[in-house]
């Protein structure tokens, strides 16, 4: 008896391979990606790499996201599969199977799909994870380890999680079978379909939502606002897309249908009424495809841009090789003592120091408007810029130059737009009003090149970055009363030592280790080593890049599978329709033309809208990326274009492949087979 079930279930899978193969492949991809994320986050070797820990944290964030995506996507697929098989189940029922038998059959089928995809998914995941691991190790010039460690934790997580998923699908399915009359399944297909009605209101609301989403992206000027509004814009666009695809398309087609002269033309007649039904059935699907395509495009282009700017970022944020912060020295002797200790540490680790200098800085958050730099007693999240003030001697020493600034003059470098000729300092009151304390005006002398001094990662989340150089220490001190103490990032009771070296990576890391481990000797507040930070950045952005790439593959799989299943469903329906049309006197050519025009719309619509969405998101994403580290606009644009192009190619290939299945079904019906 059990053998019969096994045979039946096995048969069902191979007979319906047109739906089961894509089902298994899609769950395999989901399993593989989840496996990779989990395996990377658990990898012992990667943990030892600089930045590896960051990478692992990012990957582990991706695991629940992936699991949620996989669950809902696979649930949709499993429901589609069961819908396609209702007729077959109905026949089993007529032949005398009871519901419990059918449920038992369903259980076995689910089990087979699960087993097939879990085995193939983990094997693929295992291999790809190893490749990623080797890539990372190679990136850090570390010994590659070719041994295969089985990661039990990951394996158990994946096996159990997906077993639960498939069990849930099965239970939903079984409840469906128990609560419905299976004989009804037989008739399911021939049931008539209601003519879709125009939904003007929803279409207009959709248009408004989409428009406001776009407007938000195009009109947001500041990076911080862009971050705040990004989620809202995304929600508006998603809702707008769904409304426009579902209501908008049908409203448009219905109004085309109302125009008799236009509607009753051979080409329009068949296409419009065909599209009407196609859109009714598939609009939500197409909107999903479109949204996922947009996600792929935006994710891929942003993470690639971030990844490509690592070196640029590192050079902007961490200019000097070392930066060591101390409590301000009371005497020059104390200062000299610190420097000589650092020199000893360098010597011990084989680092040759090129420059070493102790300096003070004002490092603060402030609003810069109309040439007024105003700090506030409490932090405000928007309109905030980063202001960094040093004296000329530091600047001159590091740059080996002479600015010769006058007392009433400041050297100014800024990444933001600043057009005034003078600068003054004026703090704010508790209510963010300008207070009465106003500093004298300073003439501005522009510095064009980025200063080679660490200004810290604080640049990251601000609207602009200002480096000011004042002539000497007396001017420097005179500014302090005009700034609120609470706005300082590093208070003025500290000073920093910067060190530039001409030594190898290994030597620098050794010196960093020496400073790090023998703190009692050096007694600094904190130390930053550029090379260590760059590795950390690599881990962060490399991690984001990998996560983005894997999620994109997941999204892409969903997109393609969605396309495949919607073509399949249309194939079943169109096959019947075209067989009738042939009998009424349509030539094969006319039918093909009509199919093509409809299919091209169905294919192109999500792609074109996705590209438009991506284009509309560009200004906003660009500002956010700028906040995260100043990507330059032209390279981001290029990456976006490349991503769009690549995506279009993959999408087209997938489309052509799925179209073959569709055409086979339709032309089979045409020839009366």
């Amino acid at each position, binding site marked *: 008896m059990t053998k019969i079930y096994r045979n039946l279930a096995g048969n069902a899978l191979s007979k319906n391979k047109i739906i089961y193969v894509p089902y298994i492949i899609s769950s395999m991809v989901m399993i593989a990606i989840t496996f990779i994320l989990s395996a990377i986050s658990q990898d012992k070797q990667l943990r030892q790499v600089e930045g590896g820990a960051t990478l692992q944290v990012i990957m582990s964030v991706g695991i629940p996201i992936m699991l949620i995506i996989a669950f809902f996507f696979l649930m949709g697929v499993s429901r589609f599969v069961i819908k396609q098989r209702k007729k077959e189940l109905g026949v089993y029922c007529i032949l005398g199977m009871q519901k419990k038998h059918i449920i038992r059959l369903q259980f076995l089928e689910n089990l087979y799909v699960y087993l097939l995809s879990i085995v193939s998914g983990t094997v693929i995941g295992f291999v790809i994870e190893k490749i990623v691991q080797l890539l990372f190790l190679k990136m850090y010039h570390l010994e590659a380890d070719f041994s295969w460690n089985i990661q039990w934790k990951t394996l158990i997580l994946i096996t159990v999680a997906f077993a639960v998923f498939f069990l849930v699908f099965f239970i939903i399915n079984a409840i469906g079978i128990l609560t419905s009359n299976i004989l009804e399944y037989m008739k399911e297909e021939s*049931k*008539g*379909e*209601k*003519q879709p009605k125009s939904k003007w209101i929803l279409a207009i609301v959709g248009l408004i939502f989409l428009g406001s989403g776009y407007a938000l992206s195009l009109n947001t000027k500041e990076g911080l606002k862009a971050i705040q509004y990004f989620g809202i814009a995304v929600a508006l666009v998603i809702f707008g897309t769904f409304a426009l695809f579902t209501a908008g398309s049908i409203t448009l087609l219905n109004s085309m249908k109302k125009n*008799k*002269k236009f509607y*009753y*033309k*051979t080409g329009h*007649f068949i296409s419009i*009424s*065909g599209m*009407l*039904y196609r859109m009714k059935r598939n609009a939500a699907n197409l909107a999903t495809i479109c949204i996922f395509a947009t996600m792929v495009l935006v994710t891929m282009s942003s993470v690639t841009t971030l990844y490509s700017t690592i070196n640029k970022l590192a050079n902007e944020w961490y200019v000097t090789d070392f930066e060591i912060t101390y409590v301000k020295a009371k005497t020059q002797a104390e200062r000299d003592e610190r420097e000589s200790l650092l020199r000893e540490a360098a010597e011990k680790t084989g680092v040759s120091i090129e420059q070493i200098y102790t300096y003070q800085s004002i490092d603060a958050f402030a609003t810069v408007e109309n040439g007024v730099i105003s700090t506030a007693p409490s932090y405000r999240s928007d309109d905030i810029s980063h202001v960094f003030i040093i004296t000329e001697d530091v600047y001159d020493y590091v740059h080996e130059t002479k600015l010769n600034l006058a007392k009433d003059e400041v050297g100014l470098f800024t990444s933001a737009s600043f057009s005034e000729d003078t600068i003054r300092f004026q703090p704010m009151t508790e209510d963010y009003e300008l207070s009465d304390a106003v500093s004298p005006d300073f003439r501005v002398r522009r510095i064009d090149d980025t200063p080679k001094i660490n200004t810290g990662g604080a640049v990251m989340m601000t609207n602009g970055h200002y480096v000011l150089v004042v002539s000497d220490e007396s001017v420097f001190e005179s500014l302090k009363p005009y700034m609120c103490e609470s706005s300082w990032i590093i208070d003025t009771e500290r000073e920093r030592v910067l060190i530039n070296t001409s030594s190898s990576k290994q030597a620098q890391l050794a010196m960093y280790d020496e400073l790090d481990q023998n703190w009692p000797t050096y007694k600094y507040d904190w130390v930053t080593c550029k090379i260590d930070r760059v590795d950390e950045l690599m881990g962060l952005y490399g991690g984001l890049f990998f996560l983005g790439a894997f999620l994109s593959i997941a999204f892409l799989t969903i997109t393609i599978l969605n396309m495949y299943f919607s073509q399949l469903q249309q194939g079943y329906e169109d096959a019947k*329709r075209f067989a*009738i*049309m*042939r*009998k*009424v*006197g*349509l*030539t*094969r*050519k*006319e039918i093909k033309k009509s199919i093509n025009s409809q299919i091209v719309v169905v294919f192109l619509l999500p792609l074109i809208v996705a590209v438009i969405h991506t284009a509309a998101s560009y200004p906003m994403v660009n500002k956010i990326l700028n906040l995260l580290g100043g990507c330059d606009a032209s390279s981001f644009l290029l990456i976006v274009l490349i991503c769009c192009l690549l995506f279009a190619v993959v999408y087209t290939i997938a489309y052509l492949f799925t179209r073959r299945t569709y055409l086979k079904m339709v032309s089979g019906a045409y020839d*009366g087979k």
Partner: protein
Amino acid sequence: MSMLVVKNVKKVYTTRFGGNKVTALQNVNLTVERGEFVAIMGESGSGKTTLLNIIATLDKPTEGEIELDGQSMQSMKEKQLAKFRRDRLGFVFQEFNLLDNFSVRDNIYLPLVLAGCSPAEMETRIRPIADKLGITPLLEKFPYEISGGQKQRVAVARAIITEPEMVLADEPTGALDSRSTDELLEQFANINRDGQTILMVTHSIKAASTAGRVLFIKDGIVYHQIYRGDETNSEFYRKISDSLTALMGSGLRAVNE
């Protein structure tokens, strides 16, 4: 001159790899005159649907020739054949074959739209036909909203709106209940009286008894034919029934509705 001439038509189906050959039609000869209502009777597998498909140009004969109005169909290309079907033939099928995404009106319009008719002209054409078939109130409905009998009347309207030379009907009563069958046959008789040539394939004696002439087909050959003459439907019904028993022996399971 006869309207339709079928000369020595043979049809052999070959399985894909050239293995088995199945002869569906051995050697069929028949003619249909203008204004005639002809029924072709035969059991399942006798080749009657194959014959209809060949006459409908949906299928090609292996041998032999078909002429409609003196025009041979063998030499025509796909495109010409489609135009030919559209302009000169009308179809009624057992399964109605209405497109579910078109309203009743649009289903009837379909062949006219394909022929490039203007909306105004279509409107003038549909009115008398819809009246005659009693489907005027249904025009704006959709196929899923109407009954089987109504669907079949819509299909008839679609078949005759192009004013075809011949209407081909394949088991038109096969999916209908007896009342709808009566109504439909009545309408067939009506449109035939108006001069419409009809060729119908059926295995229902009742349907065949509406026709003016009945051809019997078995094993791919036309065996026999009988004319109605002046007989009433019920007299003709008996005659067909007798012929079936006599000629086919136990070979044909006649359906006695």
